[in-house]
């Protein structure tokens, strides 16, 4: 599993830096997911250093960090590079949204005045077919249905996230959203359950998603 990211337009990032009157930057590039998506890693770091230097920014430091999203790893990086963090007025991260927020959290104690910016848009948690082909197959809804839908997720593959599909927008197994090019998730489920002899599961009426737990900040805390 990889958190899939894409690059924000360079101008969008530069405008944000300008609006915030940024002068000295510390760059943090994700060495795992964003490296795989070619939005971070060593290559991304080199690319952004060049862009920012050409724009006249002072690059205090630039590091590839394996787990930007792990508070413990980021805390170590900040400790080891304390003088540089202190000197920079802002951090810019080539990572997903988790990376940004991990840095914000780690800096909040000693360096709460520092700004943190991001160069990427976070798309989804993705299944990798090959590099450059990533697909959303799970939304992390917290109440997995896959045991009864033949291993195909309706929340993700149905454009309406219906619990009891297919809807009238399905034509010849294709979905009305996207000009009938993508498969209807519920037809995929029907075909799969038919293959494994479990159409009884297809006939079952499923309750709507319970938003009482999903609608706010979710956390898994077991110690």
């Amino acid at each position: 599993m990889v958190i899939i990211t894409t690059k924000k337009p360079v101008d969008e990032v530069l405008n944000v830096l300008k609006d915030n009157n940024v002068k000295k930057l510390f760059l943090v590039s994700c060495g795992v997911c964003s490296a795989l998506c070619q939005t971070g890693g060593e290559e991304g770091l080199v690319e952004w250093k060049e862009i920012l230097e050409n724009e006249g920014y002072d690059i205090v430091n630039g590091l590839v960090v394996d787990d930007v999203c792990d508070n413990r790893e980021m805390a170590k990086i900040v400790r080891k590079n304390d003088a540089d963090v202190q000197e920079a007025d802002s951090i810019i991260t080539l990572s997903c949204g988790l990376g940004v927020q991990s840095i914000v959290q780690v800096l909040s104690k000693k360096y709460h005045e520092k700004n943190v910016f991001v160069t990427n848009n976070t798309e989804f948690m993705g299944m990798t077919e090959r590099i450059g082909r990533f697909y959303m197959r799970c939304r992390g809804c917290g109440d997995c249905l896959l045991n009864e839908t033949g291993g195909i997720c309706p929340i993700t593959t149905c454009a309406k996230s219906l619990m009891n599909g297919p809807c009238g927008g399905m034509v010849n197994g294709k979905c009305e959203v996207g000009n009938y090019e993508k498969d209807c998730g519920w037809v995929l489920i029907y075909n799969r359950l038919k293959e494994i002899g479990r159409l009884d599961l297809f006939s079952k009426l499923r309750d709507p998603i319970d938003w009482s737990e999903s609608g706010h900040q979710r956390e898994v805390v077991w110690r």
Partner: protein
Amino acid sequence: MVEKKVYSKLGEMLAKGEFILTGELEPEKTCDLSHTIQEAKEIAPYVVAANVTDSPLGIVTINSMAASHIIQKEAGLEVIWQLTVRDINKLGIAGMIMGGHALGLRNVLSLTGDHPALGDMPESKPVFDLDSATLIRLVKEMVDKGTINGHEIEHPPTLHVGAAANPNSDPMGAEILKIGRKAEVGCEFIQTQVVYDLDRTIEFLSEIKKYNVPILLGIFPMKSYGMAKGFDTFVPGVDVPKEILAKWKNIKTEFKHDKAEQKRIYDQANYEFFKPFISELKKKGLLAGVHCMAVHYPRIFPKLMEVIKA
């Protein structure tokens, strides 16, 4: 046998087993419903009730609950209020069901609704908190048990709830099982998507007969060649047969200088196509009636009545 409760003329006619005709009205992006009310008045002598659409194709129109109320009041025609789960969450819909009842609506058709991405506000949030089956279940809970999520309603609503079905659906097996889910939660009538393929329709209706839900067959008499061609091109999953298109094209050309005669011939051609189609299904005991979706074509209704009564 427990006698079914009746809340509307539609409910009454279906309970009696009378072969009925329902129509369709499509309010537009307007706050003035005078055109729709006029059309409702024209079809009122022939239909038991008429559907009032809820922003079809995701294109924003006047709210269907408000339009249903106004049409019913002004035209004196009972409506089948189309309600999609596209735009409003479960909490909002439960409130609307009570509101719909308070406004005098007694029939509601549960629909998923076309995705907002298809329409003219594609950036809208697609809600789909419920789906067409769980909306039926909610209505039935409110009407039959007088509760919402187990909480008592002081004065519960009384509405009949129906569903849509698509005989053109491929794979048909998925559609059939889906109808089964809706029947299980208490769906009281079904209106089908427009059909032109008799064999496929017989196969589909024979399959869903086991669910014992009255079926109203969706038909679309075509007012002109342009309408037939447009329907064939722009309505996904519905193919107008080539011979119909050819015949309608011929009428267009042959009677281009005599519009009155052209209208009469179009009407006659519709009659000749749909009469044997409907008669065959009626004879097989597969139908409770017909749902005519030909909006802006009220003059066809007297002829359709001949088919219904035949």
